[in-house]
């Protein structure tokens, strides 16, 4: 639902790093706990990038699963489809999220022959 405003932020970052060069692909890493719908992001990108220097580029989404590490027994648990933040090792509730909250642009792939 907030993918439109997110696309605005992505456009700002991509434009700065592209520095005038044509962009083909924007690689985005999205953790499972980020409430971003990849298909919606791709669709919104078409709307946001249209009539800008980024028109014609596309977003490629890399999804990172959520994992937690128990603070008492150190066990690492996959959070799963229905996120339950309970340690599978000891049943403890005190766990830290070690992956799944990522939300970043990792790289840009530029158009054209570079060499």
């Amino acid at each position: 639902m907030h993918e439109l405003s997110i696309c605005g932020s992505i456009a700002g970052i991509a434009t700065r790093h592209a520095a005038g060069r044509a962009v083909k692909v924007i690689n985005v890493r999205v953790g499972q706990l980020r409430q971003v719908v990849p298909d919606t992001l791709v669709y919104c990108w078409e709307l946001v990038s249209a009539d800008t220097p980024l028109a014609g580029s596309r977003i490629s989404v890399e999804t990172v699963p959520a994992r937690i590490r128990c603070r008492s027994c150190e066990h690492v648990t996959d959070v799963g489809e229905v996120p339950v933040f309970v340690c599978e090792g000891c049943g403890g509730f005190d766990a830290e999220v070690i992956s799944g909250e990522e939300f970043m642009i990792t790289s840009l792939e530029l158009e054209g022959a570079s060499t």
Partner: protein
Amino acid sequence: MGRFHRHDDGTVHDHDHAGDHTHDTGDHSGYATGGERVEVLERIFDENDRTAAANRAEFAAAGVRVVNLMSSPGAGKTTLLRETLSRLAGQVRVGIIEGDIETSLDADKLAGFGAEIALINTGNGFGGECHLDAPMVRSALPRLPLADLELVVIENVGNLVCPAEFDVGEDARAMVYAITEGEEKPLKYPVMFRSCGLVVVNKVDLLPYLGFDMDGFLDNLRKVNPAAEVMMVSARTGDGIDAWCDWLRAL
């Protein structure tokens, strides 16, 4: 669209397959098809988070404590706030930042208790925003006499998804959950329930009529946020509102 596939480390992503390749290591350098690759590694919420930090600094400089209040539509945020303002009037100088998609209906309900109210109408653009972000909150600050206030309540847009993603510069996050929403809400919206230090369970006056499983709800809440503080209230009857007001005073 490309194809989704999974790496050994569980990472899943998609991209176009322009030719034969392998990627046992997750190294994508072999993908370049003539174009150049630019490393970015920049967090997409950086801009929001920088503005949130600026908001936080401004609140701190004015000596104001700030709570970001979230809920689904109809959980009773505005009614709770109305009751809150009526109790804090004359004791705590309160400002309200009110996020609302189209109308000033909520702000109108809160008028008359001596609180300063700044409305952020989020209806510009594509059918309205579903959340408040840090720049929107920043735009409301000039309309609040921060130096004269002790507490600012940011009433976020009614939505259990998007507001959880955006730091707006608050000191604490609280949510209003109504028992009419069902016991499974924490499991359906874990990010929201995890992001809050306090869950205000509202409409408890309806308990005799709903067959609501409170233990089941609290169990689900504990699965996603074991540290959350819980308060039982009825904004309609006033039950529990004093405890919530004490929580606000102690922020």
